[in-house]
C-alpha cells in the first residue's frame, strides 16, 4: 500500500475513532489504540516512516502536556503525603516486573527495565476523570491522589531518560539546552506570547514545537531519551497556562486533531494480535506483576493518607495508559524490545487502565455529598404572578 493510501486509511480511522468516542463515552486515545490494532493486523500494515516520525513527536508533546497539566501549587501543599504513595507506586511494580521479566521470563536487562518502567506508571488522566466525576477532585483525598500520580509520572520519565542514556559528547549540549529552555522559556513566554500570540498562525504553538524538536534532536545525538526535560519544561510552563487558558486550549486542539491520534494509532499498529494470542499466560502474569505490588505497596499508605477511600485510591493508583504506551514505544523504536514484548506490554497497560478503574467505580465508588439542591419556588400561573 502506498504512503498516501495508508495516510487516507489512517485519517479515516482517526475520524471513526472520534465519532465512536463521542457516541459511547470512551476516551478517543483508547479507541485509536484499539483501531490501530485492528487496522494494522487486518491489512498487515507496517508502520510507515512518516507515521513513526509523527508518532515520536506526538509522544514528546504528550509528555510536555502531562507536565503542563500538573497543578504545581497543589503539589507543593500535598507533596509530603503524596511523595511516599507516588514513590512506592513507582518502585514496587518496577522492581517486581523488572525482576520477574529478567529472571522468570528470560528478558535481557534493558528489556526488563523497559518492562518495569512501562508497568510502573499511573495514569493521571484516568485518575483525574474519575475524581472529577465523583467530585473528589475538590477534596483533600483527590488532591493527594493527583499529587501522588505526579510523583509516579516524574519517576517514570526520569527512569526513561536516565536508565537508557549511553552518553556521548552530545550530552553536554543536550543538558545545557535543556536547562536553558527550562529556565528561559517560562521567563520569555509572557513577552513572546504577548507580542506574537493570539493569532491564527499560532506562533506560541510553534515555539513549543520548536523547543521539543530541539530536545528530540539533541537527545538523539546524546543517545538519550528527552522525556525528562520535556516533562519538566511542561511543568515549568504550567503556571503560565493556568493564566492563559486559551493558549493551552489551542495547543490541545492541534495535538488532538493531528498529532496524538497518530501516536496511539502507531502504538496499536505495532501490536501483533497473533503474538498476544500465543502468549496469553505471559500476559496474565505481567498483569498480576503490575497490579499486586502496586496495590500491596500503596494500600497501607493510602489507609494513612487517603482514608476513608483507601481501596478506591489504591485501585486508581494502579491504572496506567499514556506513559506506559510512551515507554513501550520507546523500547520498540530503540530496538530494545521486539514486537511480541511490545504487544504484551501495551496489552497490560490498556488492561491496567480499564480493570482497576471499572472495579473502583463499580464496587468502591465513594459517595461524596452533593451540594444541596437550589430552593424551588412553586410554579405559578402568570395571572397569579401579576
Amino acid at each position, binding site marked *: 500500500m502506498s504512503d498516501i493510501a495508508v495516510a487516507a486509511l489512517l485519517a479515516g480511522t482517526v475520524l471513526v475513532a472520534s465519532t465512536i*468516542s*463521542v*457516541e*459511547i*463515552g*470512551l*476516551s*478517543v*486515545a*483508547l479507541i485509536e489504540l484499539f483501531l490501530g490494532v485492528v487496522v494494522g493486523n487486518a491489512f498487515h500494515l507496517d508502520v510507515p516512516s512518516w507515521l513513526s516520525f509523527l508518532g515520536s513527536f506526538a509522544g514528546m508533546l*504528550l509528555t510536555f*502536556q*502531562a507536565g503542563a*497539566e500538573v497543578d504545581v501549587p497543589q503539589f507543593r501543599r500535598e507533596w509530603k503525603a503524596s511523595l511516599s504513595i507516588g514513590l512506592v507506586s513507582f518502585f514496587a511494580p518496577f522492581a517486581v516486573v523488572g525482576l520477574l521479566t529478567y529472571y522468570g521470563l528470560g528478558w535481557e536487562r534493558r528489556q526488563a527495565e523497559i518492562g518495569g518502567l512501562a508497568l510502573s506508571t499511573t*495514569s*493521571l*488522566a*484516568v485518575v*483525574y*476523570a474519575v475524581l*472529577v*466525576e465523583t467530585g473528589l477532585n475538590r477534596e483533600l483525598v483527590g488532591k493527594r491522589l493527583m499529587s501522588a500520580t505526579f510523583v509516579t509520572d516524574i519517576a517514570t520519565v526520569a527512569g526513561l531518560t536516565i536508565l537508557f542514556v549511553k552518553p556521548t559528547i552530545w550530552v553536554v549540549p543536550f543538558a545545557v539546552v535543556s536547562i536553558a529552555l527550562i529556565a528561559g522559556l517560562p521567563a520569555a513566554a509572557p513577552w513572546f506570547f504577548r507580542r506574537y500570540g493570539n493569532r491564527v498562525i499560532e506562533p506560541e504553538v510553534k515555539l513549543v514545537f520548536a523547543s521539543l524538536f530541539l530536545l528530540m534532536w539533541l537527545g538523539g545525538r546524546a543517545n538519550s531519551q528527552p522525556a525528562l526535560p520535556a516533562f519538566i519544561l511542561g511543568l515549568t510552563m504550567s503556571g503560565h497556562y493556568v493564566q492563559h487558558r486559551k493558549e*493551552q*486550549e489551542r495547543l*490541545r486542539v492541534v*495535538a*488532538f486533531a493531528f498529532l*496524538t491520534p497518530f501516536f*496511539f494509532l502507531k502504538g496499536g499498529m505495532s501490536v501483533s494480535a497473533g503474538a498476544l494470542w500465543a502468549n496469553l499466560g505471559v500476559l496474565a502474569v505481567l498483569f498480576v506483576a503490575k497490579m499486586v505490588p502496586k496495590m500491596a505497596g500503596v494500600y497501607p499508605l493510602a489507609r494513612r493518607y487517603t482514608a476513608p477511600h483507601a481501596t478506591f485510591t489504591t485501585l486508581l493508583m494502579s491504572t496506567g*495508559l*499514556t506513559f506506559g*504506551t510512551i515507554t513501550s514505544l520507546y523500547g520498540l523504536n530503540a530496538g530494545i524490545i521486539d514486537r511480541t514484548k511490545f504487544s504484551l506490554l501495551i496489552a497490560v497497560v490498556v488492561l491496567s*487502565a*480499564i480493570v482497576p*478503574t471499572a472495579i473502583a467505580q463499580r464496587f468502591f465508588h465513594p459517595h461524596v455529598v*452533593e451540594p444541596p*439542591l*437550589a*430552593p*424551588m*419556588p*412553586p*410554579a*405559578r*400561573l*402568570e*395571572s*397569579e*404572578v401579576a
Partner: protein
Amino acid sequence: MPFEKILVAIDGSECSDRAFDKAVELAVLAHARLTALGVEGPLPAYAATVGEVDEVKREKDSFFRALAAAARSRGEQAGIEVAIDVRPGHPAELIPRVAEEGRYDLIVLGHRGHFVRDRLLGSTADRVAEQAHCPVMIVR
C-alpha cells in the same frame, strides 16, 4: 393535589425538549414545583490526557449552562419559575437518585437521549422507570 414536585431530565435532545414542554404544562396545571435536572453524562472513560477530560468537561458545562438558561426562559414564558440542577454522571443512575433525595413525586423524561451509549445497556428511560421510587412519565 396529584403532583407537588416534578423533576424533568434535560439533555438538549429533541425528546428531552418535548419532555420539558410536557413537564412545564403539568407543573402549570398542578401548581407544582418544577426542577430541570441537566445530566451531563459521563466524562471520557480511560482518558489518555487530562486535556481530553478538561475540554470535554468544559464543553459540557458550557452546553448545559446554555441549556439551563433556555429552560428558565421557556419556564418564564409559561409563567413559572424553573429550578435548575446540573450534575455529572450516568443518567440512569443519577435521575432516580436525585428524585429520591429530593422527594419528587413525578419524573418526566424523553424516551431517547443523544448518544449510542444511552442505549448500550438498555434504554435510559426503561432503567429509570425500573429504579425510580415515584411515577415516571416517558415522553415520545
